[in-house]
């Protein structure tokens, strides 16, 4: 990795330059919130954003995605090409980059997913530092820092960015499109100060002691029933989560019924149909068991395979949940006992 500093005002140059070669995507305002969208005008880029409604996963694993086109008569695949055009995803916070790394384990590990891979290969990532909001708890999972998985990372030093360059592509692009200068000792010192301040700004650190064990030990804890009563089963938490990857597969026929396409669409374990098998048997009938499963899988199921928790503490689900169910609350209830809430 090597480092540069860049004047903040130069960000527009960089975006404009990148736009000549790539589709540039970044955070833009939508009402009082933000979304990752294609940047038409560098002035729309809002690197001071807090968080986006949907995470960047929508660019790698779209909410609805064609997997293949088929012909019915001979049950033949007509086209299953995975195609993605080159693009730069600008302004990912550390949690979002970490989330992509967690998704990679699933989609790029055993049985590589060609669609996800095509998007991943075609996309460069430019990260940007952030400041914690009250719903953030990435520090609980050590996802407040990111050391790889990006091409360029910008840390905000007020009037300039401390630029960490991870990949050859990142270095070349920087070189081609924007003026930067070598870092000085002061830059590094200031960078460290910023990081220190960032760590200090977090709300009280979430206690996650023995969480996977507790999930088993307290499998029948009444807290789940209480959560089940509150949960709306709406699945909003899964949609906005940068690490939720479940999907449903559907075949849609064209109106002439001769051909059609197989699609996948985002799904959620909070829906009763999610675990239903033929004849209507459902393995997680109660709402309580479904709420529990989301945490059980994230904090233990995934961990048992990949040694990481399937959450990056971005707080999106906290914001999206109308019933105010949040990982912070659930983890606290398990670790400290439900009366501690």
């Amino acid at each position, binding site marked *: 990795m090597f480092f540069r500093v860049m004047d903040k005002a130069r960000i527009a140059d960089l975006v404009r330059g990148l736009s000549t070669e790539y589709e540039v995507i970044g955070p833009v305002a*939508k*009402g*009082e*919130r933000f*979304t990752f969208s294609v940047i038409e005008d560098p002035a729309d880029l809002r690197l001071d954003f807090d968080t*986006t*409604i*949907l995470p960047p996963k*929508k660019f790698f694993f779209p*909410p*609805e995605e064609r997997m293949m086109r088929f012909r019915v008569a001979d049950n033949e695949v007509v086209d299953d090409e995975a195609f993605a055009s080159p693009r730069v995803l600008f302004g990912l916070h550390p949690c979002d980059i970490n989330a992509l790394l967690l998704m990679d384990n699933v989609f790029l590990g055993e049985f590589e997913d060609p669609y996800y891979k095509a998007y991943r290969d075609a996309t460069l990532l430019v990260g940007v530092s952030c400041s914690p909001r009250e719903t953030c708890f990435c520090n609980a999972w050590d996802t407040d820092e990111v050391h790889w998985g990006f091409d360029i990372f910008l840390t905000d030093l007020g009037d300039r960015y401390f630029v960490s360059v991870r990949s050859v592509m990142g270095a070349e692009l920087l070189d081609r499109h924007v003026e930067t200068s070598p870092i000085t000792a002061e830059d590094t010192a200031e960078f460290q100060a910023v990081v220190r301040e960032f760590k200090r700004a977090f709300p009280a650190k979430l206690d996650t002691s023995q969480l996977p064990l507790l999930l088993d030990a307290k499998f029948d804890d009444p807290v789940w029933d209480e959560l089940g*009563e*509150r*949960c*709306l*089963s*709406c*699945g*909003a938490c*899964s*949609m*906005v989560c940068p690490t939720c990857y479940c999907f449903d597969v559907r075949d*849609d*026929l*064209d*109106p*002439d*019924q001769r051909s059609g396409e197989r699609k996948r669409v*985002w799904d*959620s374990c*909070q*829906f*009763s*149909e999610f675990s239903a098998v033929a004849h209507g048997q459902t393995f997680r009938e109660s*709402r309580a068991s479904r709420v529990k499963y989301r945490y059980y899988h994230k904090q233990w199921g995934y961990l048992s395979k990949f040694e990481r928790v399937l959450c990056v503490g971005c707080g999106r689900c906290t914001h*999206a949940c*109308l*019933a*105010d169910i949040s990982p912070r609350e659930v983890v606290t209830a398990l670790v400290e006992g439900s009366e501690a809430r």
Partner: protein
Amino acid sequence: MAPRVVVIGLASDFGCQVQMTNIEDHLLDVLGLIDLTYWQLASSGHLPAEYDVAIVEGAVTTEAHVEALRRVRETAGAVIAVGACAITGGIPAIASAGELADRYGCVYGEGGAEVACGRIAPMPVTAVIDVDYRVPGCPLDTDEFLRVLSRALQGLSGRIPEEPLCAACKTRENICFHDRGELCLGLVTRTGCGAKCVSLGRACTGCRGIAADANLDAAYALLASRGIPAEEFTRRLSLYNTLEEGCDR
């Protein structure tokens, strides 16, 4: 032999039938697959004695409707109920509350009740007969209609999404109405419309019915905690769902 399809309209605005003609790009494809033997809206002729698929729109508001539906059920291999009117009673079911005679009075003046012969309180088709397929919404969504029709023609099972709208709404990255303190019914409404209204800046009014997965108790409780009284929620729900269970507090 192409399946024989009939389209039957009960009490409605014909909107779903109009929507069925609104598949211009594919109308000819679809017509190529079926033998459309009766559609009063589009063609002269009589309801035949035999047919395979019956598409029924509208609410049941007369004794004659009830009888007609029973015959349809006996005759058709598959019945597709389309639109809120046929599935939840929809807007016409607002008139199911109170005395019909009063409503006659309100609309026709004194003596209006005389015209009321054979009239019954509005109810959905699904309250009279079992249906095999449902295309909810007011009006129906043409793409969904095509998908369901295609399932019916293939003899596949009738499936209807059972979860609330919020998930789809999130995928559209809408700003939640509740974040602005406004009531949106998406939190209990059956998904499948792609959160159409919310994406157009309007809170969901519940036209697709209450989702089976919806947690009405929790919805009432959380709205109360946000200062929206139960009566308000009930009134809003009753626009399309007067007769649905659980929204009457």
